[in-house]
């Protein structure tokens, strides 16, 4: 005869709601903090919702996106005098009409209304000007894309290099593994604070070091205060902080490659490069896909470094999409604008991940 205990346990497990009950904590948390906000952001991005506002929320369609993504091109012809000759200034450069004459209350150019100059170039005597409705967003977008384009290959490459170096049977190799991995376990906020000291313009470690190894020839640079260096400084630090994590993933991939393959290659006369090319790299294919996708997504979500180190400055040179989303959503209380950026970011990352998966797919 059965005892009572297994019987009750069995009936509990067989109860139709048991499974749902066990999943409930995870489902509730995921819904509350992931699925819900995602759907909300999607919805808000089509409204004019503000954090605190006396006015009722209205559906505005795609206006948020138009506002952010609006760009226009304007070709400026040089000003001519009555004879038709180009008017030149004292240095012989042609003079052009001011851009704002087209973008401010000009009924002939309604599509350029409210836009500002983004960048431009000369085209013969003409001047081509690209205008954007939301310059800060454009800055954030290009910065983020640049950040991803540099961080993904550099961080993946460095991590692979480190993984190859520490994937050896050497005395004390675990010390190196630990050292390389250490930045990963330190919070990015703490890392950013520390690196602010390293990058400090007057007495920073980096300036002192460079000045020391160049025998005082090096002139100190305010790494985070210069528009030309600030983003690169954040980029270098981000690579340093994240490289250990990806090194470990590469390492796990390396260790799945059977030793016998290397031995066979040795006997067949492969050089170290050929062993990498024909044994290691093909064996790392799946790892490579994973690492590229993970780094790309991490790089797109650049936020904490910017928030702690530069707040987007100087001169918007370190603006990023996520930083802008937070800035607009909470600082400017423009939840709709922030949501629209989030949705765009989502689409961007999705598109890139799909492309990466397609490009790195298994070909038969």
């Amino acid at each position: 005869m059965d005892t009572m205990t297994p019987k009750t346990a069995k009936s509990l497990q067989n109860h139709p709601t048991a499974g749902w009950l066990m999943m409930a904590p995870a489902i509730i948390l995921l819904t509350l903090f992931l699925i819900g906000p995602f759907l909300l952001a999607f919805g808000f991005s089509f409204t004019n919702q503000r954090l605190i506002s006396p006015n009722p929320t209205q559906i505005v369609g795609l206006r948020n996106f138009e506002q952010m993504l609006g760009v226009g091109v304007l070709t400026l012809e040089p000003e001519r005098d009555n004879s038709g000759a180009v008017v030149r200034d004292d240095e012989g450069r042609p003079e052009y009409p001011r851009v704002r004459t087209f973008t401010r209350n000009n009924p002939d150019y309604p599509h350029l209304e409210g836009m500002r100059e983004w960048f431009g170039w000369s085209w013969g005597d003409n001047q081509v000007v690209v205008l954007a409705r939301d310059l800060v967003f454009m800055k954030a977008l290009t910065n983020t894309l640049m950040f991803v384009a540099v961080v993904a290959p550099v961080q993946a490459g460095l991590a692979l290099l480190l993984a190859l170096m520490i994937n050896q049977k050497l005395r004390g190799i675990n010390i190196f593994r630990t050292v390389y991995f250490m930045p990963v376990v330190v919070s990015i906020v703490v890392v950013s604070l520390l690196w602010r000291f390293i990058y400090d313009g007057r007495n920073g470690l980096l300036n002192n070091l460079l000045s020391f190894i160049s025998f005082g020839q090096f002139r100190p640079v305010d790494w985070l205060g210069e528009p030309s260096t600030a983003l690169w400084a954040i980029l270098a630090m981000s690579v340093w902080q994240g490289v250990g994590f990806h090194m470990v993933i590469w390492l796990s991939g390396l260790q799945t490659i059977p030793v016998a393959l290397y031995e066979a290659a040795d006997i067949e006369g492969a050089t170290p490069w050929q062993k990498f090319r024909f044994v290691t790299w093909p064996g790392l294919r799946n790892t490579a896909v994973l690492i590229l996708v993970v780094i790309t997504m991490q790089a797109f979500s650049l936020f904490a470094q910017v928030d702690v180190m530069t707040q987007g400055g100087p001169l918007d040179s370190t603006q990023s999409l996520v930083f802008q989303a937070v800035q607009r959503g909470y600082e400017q209380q423009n939840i709709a604008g922030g949501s629209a950026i989030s949705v765009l970011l989502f689409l961007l990352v999705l598109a890139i991940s799909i492309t990466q998966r397609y490009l790195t797919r298994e070909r038969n």
Partner: protein
Amino acid sequence: MAGLEFKGVHKSYGKVDVIKGVDLSIAHGEFVVFVGPSGCGKSTLLRMVAGLEDITAGELTIGERVVNQVQPRDRGVAMVFQSYALYPHMSVYDNVGFGLRLKKTPKDIRDQKIREAARILQMEHLLDRKPAQLSGGQRQRVAIGRAIVRQPEVFLFDEPLSNLDAALRMDMRMEISKLHQELGATMIYVTHDQVEAMTLADKIVVLNAGVVQQVGSPLELYHHPENLFVAGFIGSPKMNFLKVTAEKTDAGLTIAGADLEETTIAASGSQVSTGDRITLGLRPHDFIESADGRLRGVVELVERLGNETIVNVRLAGGTQVIAALDGDSHLEVGHEARFGFAPEKLHLFDADGQTIAR
């Protein structure tokens, strides 16, 4: 011409000695099998020939050249691994041709050699496949093909058949044997399976705990094992061992023990003195059912294989032995039976396990 010469070859990992001084010469074209229980150092010895393991002490010569410091690729050896070690992302064609490609062999010659190897191994229809699409036996063929195309002077096989099922193993065994006849190259083959060793080898090297126990042709080892280890390792089913006490007499040597009734055998007995405890070895196939046999026991298990009957017998002294009898033996479990043997078939070993000369 590439024979091999081992002179006092040692291998140790730190303080652990794995190979404790191997002296051995292998003639060109010989098929040599290293056999022994797992952990005896046979694979290590093979890997030292390949150059995958350093030689701690001693000297290894391939052809005329001392190769202790020579890179694997420059030793003129090809190796077939137990795990096949095929490159998973390359087709069979590319796997077989990989070594040639590394050597920058012109494409047409490479193609010709790959197809020739595929023809020899009857795998022409597999050339476009990836290793994952092949069965175990096919993979093994590819691995052998990869070795053949490089036309090495020495082939090394590291337990190449142990991942295959029994029937396939027999086929591949015959193919490897045929291959050896066709190519006439020196082959060194590592296995723990004494049947493979017996069927393939010109010369067997029995290893135990890093020491060569005996070197000789399969039948030499079978009929004249030099010690207890070789006697027990070669032959299937295993040789039976009985503890007996020896007594020197005019007729030769009289031996008796708990399991064995007094038996006198013709032997000089020069190495034995009366009262010595010695070990007697008797192969299962040398048992003869006979009413006046000197071994008496109870049958505990009968396996009828048709061509022979294998019986487990508990002898009077409690030792269990295995006898291989005729296929039509009438013994049943529980029967008491007597067995005899031809005295010249006995093997005698002294207390140290060394064979006693007759």
